[in-house]
């Protein structure tokens, strides 16, 4: 039986792990390679590096981080942030990433999803989506780290993303991100109903029960979290122990 995945996300700026609340108040907290090794020890099923520098110098730094991690940590690695061309994909995969996550660039240029999946395979194309409830009670897609409302309907977008060949969707709810009040169950269910590709839940977890809730109430394949792991509020191992008690299949680390 397929295990539910627990994925720590490392937001990296200029080679340092950082974490903010609702995309603001960012502060540095440490060396990403060390974090990656620690999470691997705890039983993380995958790791995500999200580059929030998105400058040219920053890109070189994050690729070094990936290169070094790929020599020491043997679980799938995803890199996102600032990737907008096929050449960026190639460079990132060559550095040792197994998957590349695109977000704003996919919204601006959806054909990138198809091109990348045709060349490198669907398995390495993750489309990250930031979404938020709107006045009509539906969900809208935002870009640029949740700053710009694209007036694009979330459900239409996820269907298109799947059709274009994405291998996975990482859904981040702006409404719950940073709140520590739990994943956005309603938004996740709406997306999981609309597509067959795996959906990764992101944004909002603050305690162990949030992980069991997301797997009990939605079809999400994985749950992603950043700050609660960084600040050592819980470990990946504790999350898995909790899920196991709830009879949710997990890989033991």
């Amino acid at each position, binding site marked *: *039986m397929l295990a539910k995945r627990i994925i720590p996300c490392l937001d990296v700026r200029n080679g340092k792990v950082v974490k903010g609340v609702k995309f603001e108040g960012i502060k540095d907290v440490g060396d990403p390679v060390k974090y990656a090794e620690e999470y691997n020890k705890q039983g993380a099923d995958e790791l995500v590096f999200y580059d929030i520098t998105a400058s040219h110098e920053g890109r070189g730094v994050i690729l070094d981080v990936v290169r070094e991690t790929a020599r020491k940590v*043997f679980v799938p690695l995803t890199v996102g942030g600032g990737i907008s061309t096929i050449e960026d994909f190639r460079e990132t995969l060559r550095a*040792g990433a*197994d998957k590349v996550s695109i977000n704003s660039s996919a919204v601006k240029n959806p054909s990138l999803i198809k091109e990348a999946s045709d060349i490198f395979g*669907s398995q*390495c194309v993750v489309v990250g989506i930031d979404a938020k409830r709107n006045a009509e009670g539906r969900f809208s897609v935002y870009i640029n780290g949740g700053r710009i409302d694209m007036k694009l309907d979330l459900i239409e977008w996820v269907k298109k993303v799947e059709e274009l060949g994405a*291998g996975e969707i990482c859904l981040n709810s702006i409404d719950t991100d940073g709140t520590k009040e739990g994943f956005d169950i309603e938004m996740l269910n709406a997306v999981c109903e609309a597509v067959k590709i795996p959906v990764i839940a992101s944004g909002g977890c603050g305690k162990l029960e949030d992980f069991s809730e997301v797997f009990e109430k939605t079809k999400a394949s994985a749950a992603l979290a950043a700050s609660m792991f960084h600040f050592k509020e819980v470990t990946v191992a504790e999350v898995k122990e909790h899920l196991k008690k709830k009879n949710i299949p997990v*890989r033991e680390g």
Partner: protein
Amino acid sequence: MIAIIDYGAGNIFSVKNALDYLGLESKLTSDKQEIRNADALILPGVGAFPSAMKMLNDSGLTEIIKTEAVNKPFLGICLGMQLMFEKGYEIEECAGLGLISGSVERIVEQDLSVPHMGWNMLEVLNDCELLNGLDAESYVYFVHSYKAVCDDKNISAFCEYGSRIPALAYDGKMAYGAQFHPEKSGDTGLRILRNFGGLIK
């Protein structure tokens, strides 16, 4: 020295990284003499069956692999495992290396995502040396949309995904095929690669 056959497909650096980490000497190569001289062979691969076979055929590697895979330890990984069978049906019918009887067909499971992506549990059918020292509940990482269809005697371990998916195939002699990615399967995967290295005489 383990030759990791470089035929232009997929993420082969991660296989090399894992072997380096284990202290197993290896080289990425498409050189025929190096492949012949190697102590063991790994055929990695991510991509589509017909284009991979075309690359192997065009570069003349198909014949060498067929000859060498019966003389020394051989491990196909993911697409590399699928290529070991007689034929595949990805995009179009295409002849494979024929190291193991059987074919490679699309996974069709209602209500389940395809690709089969993530960590799934190995269930042993016919124990083999690559599984030495593994825990009873060992998970490995899969990403694939096609599966091998073959005789039980050629399945060392399988996983459940709607139906049974051959995870570790073998020809009963020297050739093994891992549908999962041992190089991305944490300690379990490293153990399997170390066991493979241990087959070198």
